[in-house]
């Protein structure tokens, strides 16, 4: 069956209160969907309980397939039975392109740029059929300029977070540097011929109660964000001692190993086997040139070790003492570390002793958990915290409910696999000065330590 998709994209924004919502943009491609189908979708998606799989919903003979990106729902509706992978990946691609062209994804930027999004969709989808999603082709047709929701400023360093990476020139590219529209105002800050190459790893770890690493899994990707209108071939050099696959023997020195990797189809690999060089002509916008993964082992020590102790204090109080050590090299820092500890049901209040004022901790009775947040955590440091939780009617079995501890954090300038970019070379024919930035980040939203 064909992917005869009626991509009828509407975007609903869910406000934080959850009661005031509005449709931001909808585009009807085939005239099959009734006028109120957006409202129908909206009613269905808000009526879902958290446990129902929401990705595909059926209303009469219409199927709605949606993804959530940037707090917005991206919806396709169809009357046929198409490939879910195609539709989901297309919607993700649409969201990524919208982000490329508008600079950021939010209800506001979508509202401001509806004409641009219409232009995009009109070229991407005709009569419900995907025509192209390549920025190289689209850039010839997209004429509307993006309206930035806030003027871009290089000096806006207020939220240096995710990226604050050093480059060859050891300058700092602010984290918002890459979140501007790819075609924004060619006159003003345009002409900034920048290329960002980001190595992003997602780490997920389970550490047993005895401190032994039970599961480790790294999903990584090399992502290029290119602001050059046209770019000739670029050579990206990875670690020369990069091994791929389980069978290969490790070298003598610090070999970097990944289990498997996959490349964007435009990447030329003729120099990859011998020199670990990727050759690619980046298109304008963002693209993932390489994805890789590593399972079941970590080349470095797990970034955090936890030494917990949970005791029953007198009658109705649990004492939770957590000592957390960051095993990163001393020069590195973990950012936005948040630690969630489940507490017994019926916990009513909590007092805490934290080691520095920038840390916060709160009890969330609704989630049966306490949340401890540390904005900056230097490598090699050890922080401890004591929580006294009042639980009326505490039994000794209630202590079993404490744990496992879940953490999320970001490690800027770090890759857990050790994958590095040795060099970035643009071919000498490339005209105009271009700035190249290499940034590394590891984040984890699934770092679990059993107690």
């Amino acid at each position, binding site marked *: 069956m064909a992917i005869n998709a009626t991509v009828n994209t509407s975007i609903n924004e869910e406000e934080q209160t959850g009661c005031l919502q509005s449709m931001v943009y909808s585009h009807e491609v085939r005239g099959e969907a009734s006028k109120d189908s957006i409202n129908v979708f909206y009613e269905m998606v808000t009526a879902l309980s958290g446990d129902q799989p929401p990705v595909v919903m059926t209303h009469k003979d219409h199927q709605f397939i949606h993804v959530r990106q940037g707090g917005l729902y991206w919806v396709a509706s169809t009357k046929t039975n198409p490939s879910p992978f*195609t539709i989901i990946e297309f919607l993700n691609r649409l969201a990524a392109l919208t982000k490329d062209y508008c600079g950021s994804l939010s209800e506001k930027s979508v509202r401001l740029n509806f004409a641009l999004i219409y232009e995009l969709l009109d070229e991407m989808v005709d009569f419900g059929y995907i025509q192209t999603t390549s920025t190289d082709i689209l850039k010839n047709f997209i004429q509307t300029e993006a309206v930035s929701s806030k003027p871009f400023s290089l000096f806006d360093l207020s939220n240096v977070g995710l990226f604050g990476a050093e480059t060859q020139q050891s300058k700092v590219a602010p984290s918002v540097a890459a979140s501007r529209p790819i075609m924004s105002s060619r006159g003003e800050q345009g002409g900034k011929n920048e290329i960002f190459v980001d190595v992003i790893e997602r780490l997920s770890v389970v550490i047993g109660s005895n401190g032994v690493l039970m599961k480790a899994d790294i999903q990584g990707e090399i992502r290029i964000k290119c602001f050059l209108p046209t770019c000739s071939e670029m050579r990206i050099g990875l670690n020369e001692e990069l091994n791929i696959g389980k069978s290969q023997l490790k070298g003598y020195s610090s070999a970097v190993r990944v289990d498997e990797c996959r490349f964007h189809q435009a990447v030329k690999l003729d120099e990859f086997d011998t020199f670990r060089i990727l050759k690619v002509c980046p298109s304008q916008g963002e693209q993932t040139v390489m994805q890789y993964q590593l399972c079941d082992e970590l080349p470095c020590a797990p970034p955090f070790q936890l030494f917990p102790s949970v005791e029953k204090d007198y009658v109705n109080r649990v004492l939770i003492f957590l000592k957390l050590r960051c095993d990163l090299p001393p020069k590195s820092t973990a950012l936005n570390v948040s630690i969630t500890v489940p507490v017994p049901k019926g916990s009513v209040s909590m007092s805490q002793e934290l080691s520095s004022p920038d840390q916060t901790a709160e009890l969330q009775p609704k989630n049966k958990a306490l949340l401890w947040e540390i904005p900056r955590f230097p490598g090699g440091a050890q922080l401890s915290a004591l929580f006294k939780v009042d639980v009326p009617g505490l039994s000794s079995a209630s202590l079993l409910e404490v744990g496992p501890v879940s953490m999320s954090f970001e490690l800027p300038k770090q890759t857990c696999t050790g994958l590095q970019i040795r060099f970035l070379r643009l071919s000498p024919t490339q005209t105009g000065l271009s700035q190249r930035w290499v940034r590394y980040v590891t984040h984890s939203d699934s770092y679990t330590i059993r107690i």
Partner: protein
Amino acid sequence: MNILDDMGAPEEPTMPYFGSEETVKELKRALSNPHVQADRLRYKNYITKVIRYMTQGLDVSALFMDMVKASATVDIVQKKLVYLYMCTYASDKPDLALLAINTLRKDCADPNPMVRGLALRNMCNFRMPGMPEYIEQPIVAGLRDKASYVRRVAVLGCAKMHSLQPNTDIDGSIVNELYALLRDPDPVVLVNCLRALEEILKDEGGVVINKPIAHHLLNRMKDLDSWAQSEVLTFLLRYRPRSDDELFDILSLLDAFLQSAHAHVAVATLRLFLHLASAHPAVQADALLRTSAPLLATCGAASRELRFAGLCHVQQVMRSQPGLFATHYKRFFCGYSEPSYIKFRKMEILVELVNDENVALVLEELRSYCTDVSPELAQAAIAAIGRIARTYSEKCLDILTGLLALKQDHITSAVIQTFRDLVWFCPQSTAAVCQTVEACVDNPQDSEGKQALLWLLGEHGEQISSAPYVMEGYIDGLKTELSSAVKMELLSASVKMFLCRPAETQDMLGRLLHYYIEEESDMCVRDRALLYYRVLQRGVEETRKVVTGPKSDPSMSVLTGRQEEPISLWASTFNTLGPLSGWDLCLQTAVISASEPSGSAENELLPGSTDVTLSSPNDTQEEISLSLGPPLSHETFEKMWLDLEILHRQTLGFPRPKTAPDTLQAALQLVKIQTLAFTPGDAVPWKAYLYTRGTGTLILAELLQEDPDAPDSEGSLVVSVKQQPGNQQTIRGFVLILKSVLQTLNVDPL
């Protein structure tokens, strides 16, 4: 930027329904103001404003005339916006829209291919009567345009034109031209041709994929972008290679796509492999093995929705190859921040993956979910441990017993329910379970938990010494019990208990029966109590014969290790929405038979030869098999019938068979068509409602015969078919089968 000045604050009211008339008037005034028209930027900003209101749901159709004027411009952005406006309102204002057509037709001859393509695309998007005559000529010209951009638009324009006049005859010359354009150098034109042909020839079975076309498509695969690749792979599902040599040539050509970086291409390739190699299980297994890496990667993708789709398809694959992902079980551990719908799927997969090596780690992982803040998730985790307990009972019983100590209602209830299922499937664990239940002080509070506990007490009362006392507690509180299911269970359990421990139970059973017979208002419970009362009057031995049955079903334990299903059971729904929405579960009975091309369809359908391409596919090509599946209630049928649209209506050309109704019903049942209802024999009009399942879809049908003596009816049967999800081929097969049955009955009245 000037745009913002004229548009006012960008955060204007999002739902400008209030005072909308004022807004429209104001815009109209501005658009017709010559000063505004003279200032290009201001003019454009007003147009942008109109479109903004339109996309937010405000009716701005009153501005149509002013917008048509605005379309005559050299500014492409403005043109695009005005075209968007015109497409939206053309069907409401057909007479005014005709005015716009002249501008559009002029643009179709513009020297700039972008303008040509844009105008043609938008003109084809107008949905109003009479459109085809205006667009036919530009479309035909567009098919031969030298710019591929215009050709792409024109090709889809053919499909749009057909959808505007769905009931007219198919234009053979356009179909031939589209077949010829499959050879176009531009890959998007090629794929658009397939899509357009598929729509135009929908009633004849869609685009024909014969050997030359299939090989052409295969050779072009590498030029296509990933979207086109996965779509072409889906079209290729229709092609059947003639020989094994050809089959393996195709497979080796496609081999690289199994490992594509795009999950949708890898999965589409896998589906094609499974389909083509249905006679070669080893090839299928190899393809599954090679695709397991991309599938696993989607299960860990950053996008939750993709992860969910990946998990659902992994589950499908595991139905046939449970061992394929066993070594990767850690990939299915739940992340703390994942939404519940993903966690549920992961737990289901983990249960299937358990083996001797990983059981300890999997159980430890599941144990940590049992205290999750979501009660549903915690209960699902407990049920998952219960499933594993059928094989590894000792380890699991320890965990489950430990959970009881938490004294939380939802956990206790889930554990007790798990125990009940466990002793039924796995009798050797009975002693341990009874010991635990005995020691458990807290009783479940919800009705499912109560039922489970009562069942355990009744069935295994002789092993739980405290059973009568627990039971007595329930009988003492029977006035406060609301759930009739619990009441029924209480009755059955008390009677069973009486049989094994009469001395302790007799008195309370008497009280229970007395209360239920004299005072209970729920008729079901009262009748059940009366039934037990009468049975008990027959004496204890008689009662024992009636009431006690097997305490477990050892034969079921053989089934706990799920049997491996043949791949063909699910291959047809692989990479469709089925696995995500659970259709494949309810339609598991649907059997697919690959449509073998018959001899007559073998003639080479070369693109470009008029006579053959339009010949309707031969009947024998349409073999489908129907199945009955679970019965459909009248209410469900009625609801679905009202919800769905008629996909197919056909006059059969003969009156209804004059056989007795049950003969008709029996005959239809023979071919697996279920009759839901029909009007009595001589009623006019005569109607019958039927349903069946086939190729993973549910088919509903109505047979209707108007008054045969009415002047304008030929007295022949009309069949209307509805289907969910839609599949034209199945409908055609269904109608053929139905027709042949009815004809047989007509010829040969039994």
